[in-house]
């Protein structure tokens, strides 16, 4: 939801398919492809792929940007676990505001209430 909001406030058209990895361009976000590849590599197990993704991203966004990118990936890797392990659902306001793109991107299949 905040990704779309950030695009709207900057009059920038963002391709939300970047979220699912379905598009391999920047998706309207500066260095979006490199950021997505970095996130995928950090969560993956291929050390060489991670080294390549890090080396590609660093000159694009600078060392301070790389630190912030790694910090965000780390934080959401943790916060997802808190959400999943407590069974929380989206707040009504967020659920309403995201209905269309959750459906379009097929994200509702991750709804915790659908788990057995």
């Amino acid at each position: 939801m905040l990704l779309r909001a950030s695009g709207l406030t900057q009059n920038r058209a963002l391709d939300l398919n970047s979220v699912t990895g379905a598009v391999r361009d920047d998706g309207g976000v500066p260095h979006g492809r490199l950021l997505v590849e970095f996130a995928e590599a950090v969560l993956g197990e291929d050390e060489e792929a991670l080294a390549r993704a890090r080396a590609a991203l660093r000159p694009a966004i600078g060392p301070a940007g790389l630190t912030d990118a790694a910090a965000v990936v780390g934080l959401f890797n943790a916060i997802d676990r808190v959400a999943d392990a407590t069974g929380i659902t989206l707040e009504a306001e967020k659920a309403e505001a995201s209905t269309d793109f959750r459906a379009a991107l097929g994200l509702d299949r991750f709804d915790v209430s659908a788990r057995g």
Partner: protein
Amino acid sequence: MSELYASAPIAIRGDLDAAHERAWDRIGRPGTWWDGGQRVAIAAETRHASSCALCRRRKEALSSAAIEGTHDSLGALPESVIEVVHRVRNDPGRLSERWFRSVIVAGFSEEQYVETLSIVAHVVAIDTMARGLGLDALPLPAPKPGPPSHYRPAGAKPGGAWVPWLEPADLTEQEAGIYPAGRPAANIMKAMSLVPDEVKSFFDIVSHQYQGPLEMRDFSREYRAISHAQIELLAARVSALNQCLY
């Protein structure tokens, strides 16, 4: 002045370095339901879990419940705690309320579950950042002596999570400040509120690794070296990879 990352080959913001130092210090101190030694043991088990063969087999299976066995653990914690640490660390996208109810057994309370989950989340946040930057994982803190406080907020009650939580209207003076002023409390904050100190501790990290509750919605300026759009793209991609709708 924090020196946690003083020798790191890449500069770490001072506020982020200090936030991690506070988090590490808190992990070593007596908590609300676990003492310092138990908290550090949970942190160590979180790291060890990544090499668990049972977890790997379960993750590859269509149904994790179909695979029986024993976790590869450090042996310092009860089996129920090890199960929670390993499942949350290794396969969070398939956790269910049925599984949660099964681990809340005699000797392992909902309050201990929340504190355990919080410690796992602290370690995952900090260790994943280090992995992203190619840094060695920080040495775990030394445990400090003392008993846990056993403080349970009187206003905690069933809400929108598997565990009881605190609505803002039910906060007492002792829990003041766990939710941001001027905004509704997000479910992710309320989810940990059965152990208020863990809300304070984890969301201290959130404010520095991500952004604070006001900064994240203030699109009029940038607070980090990457933009709001870049931050939110990373956040959304990570959550999709983790199969987390929230």
